[in-house]
């Protein structure tokens, strides 16, 4: 029962943290549009059939290669610098798998007549600035000059895919960003710990709470290398956990640890249910820009 309680606490804390980070991001001239899918045609320069085709091709590509290629078209940059905006987009969307950083963005600003290929760290070896520049210069812009956006984008994306093909193999299952802590495993190990502690200190729940408040953040800092906010939260969790564990051990005194493990099935995983999201790839400004 207190497992549920703790889980709720954990997810609420998580939500608060997420909200905090969202609010602390500065708002700038041209906002990054929300990520709709692999093809984000906000400028409306592509035919619906092209969008569907690209979406499908890119999805298949990701399934075999784990590399994510994302397209964004915007009507105008509103005076923002192309490189600046492009970097903000990939920092917000974070396409590619964490640790592999295997992704690229094709950004097209219609009215500015500018485009850019932004390349993640993991693909910089293949899709170099030089190759990106050639794709823009020799493959995409000639089509754009004719006004044939569909063909230009299709050819460009195909060239990008051909360039990076074979660089990464598909990974089994999508991975979330690795630096984020799995709150469940953390809670479970804490629960096991508390059940033992609680049984030891049945008579003195406040001492148990105190020890819990000390050991939980210590464990977080040493074993998981968490930041100070997490540590503070863990101290509170530890205090409450110690208290609860002590009282439960006093009354029922039994199978808390086993119950703790059962809770594992109800987790919140990253959306693998058809929706598309970035996986935490990082970018360092690689790629090339061009215009038509």
């Amino acid at each position: 029962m207190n497992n549920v309680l703790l889980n709720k606490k954990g997810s609420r804390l998580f939500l608060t943290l997420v909200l905090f980070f969202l609010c602390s991001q500065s708002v700038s001239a041209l906002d990054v549009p929300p990520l709709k899918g692999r093809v984000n045609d906000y400028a409306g320069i592509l035919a619906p059939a092209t969008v569907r085709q690209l979406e499908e091709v890119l999805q298949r590509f990701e399934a075999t290669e784990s590399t994510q290629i994302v397209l964004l078209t915007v009507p105008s940059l509103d005076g923002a610098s192309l490189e600046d905006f492009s970097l903000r987009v990939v920092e917000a969307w974070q396409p590619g798998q964490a640790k592999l950083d295997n992704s690229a963005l094709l950004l097209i600003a219609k009215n500015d007549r500018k485009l850019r290929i932004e390349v993640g760290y993991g693909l910089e070896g293949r899709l170099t600035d030089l190759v990106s520049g050639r794709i823009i210069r020799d493959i995409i812009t000639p089509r754009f000059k004719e006004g044939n956006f569909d063909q230009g984008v299709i050819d460009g994306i195909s060239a990008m895919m051909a360039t990076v093909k074979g660089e990464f193999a598909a990974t089994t299952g999508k991975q979330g960003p690795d630096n984020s802590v799995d709150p469940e495993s953390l809670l479970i190990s804490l629960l096991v710990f508390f059940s033992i502690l609680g049984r030891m200190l049945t008579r003195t729940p406040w001492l148990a709470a105190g020890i819990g408040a000390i050991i939980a953040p210590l464990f977080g800092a040493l074993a998981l290398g968490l930041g100070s906010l997490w540590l503070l939260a863990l101290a509170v969790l530890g205090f409450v956990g110690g208290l609860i564990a002590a009282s439960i051990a006093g009354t029922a005194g039994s199978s808390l640890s086993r119950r703790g493990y059962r809770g594992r099935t109800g987790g919140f995983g990253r959306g693998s249910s058809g929706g598309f999201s970035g996986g935490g790839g990082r970018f360092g400004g690689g790629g090339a820009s061009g215009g038509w």
Partner: protein
Amino acid sequence: MKRIMTLGTLLLLLTCILTSCGYNSLQTKEETVFKAWSDIESTLQRRADLIPNLVATVKGYAQHEQETLQQVIEARSRATSIQLSPADLSNPAAMEQLQAAQGELSSALSRLMVVVERYPELKANQGFLDLQNQLEGTENRINVARQRYNEAVEIFNGSIRRLPESLTNKFLLHLEKKEYFKAEEGAKTAPKVTF
């Protein structure tokens, strides 16, 4: 038994105070600054590595631009001769010197790119276009690396001045404030390298 427990609790309390007073996090933040700086250095090196090729290519088409080319070569050798050690990041004079040298190289390069405008054959050369893409990409990487470095410095400098980390730093760590890597003076006025 009881004594061991109180001793253990005290020990834990001490460790906790140390961990939550920024003893570890300050050092992590400083390490982030060093890492960000090494990224800047590698992008600057990347730019320096591109220049000999660029000069050679331009030379083939634009013999009359010896002076501009010479300036680029000299600026490059001055810029590459200045390297900062991690300790120099807290040294305003050293940082100033490096920024000046790199800024000079940037403006020499932009002058070269303006001059190149007069040579249509050069501008149609595939090799030159490739080099130009690489140069632009590198300049962009330098910008990104600089931004990230400055962000890391901001976080670090902020935290060594804030309580309770400031106390930890004052009594235990003695880490120094880091210098920002400012945008080059010339970069604001220099003609933009776009074609």
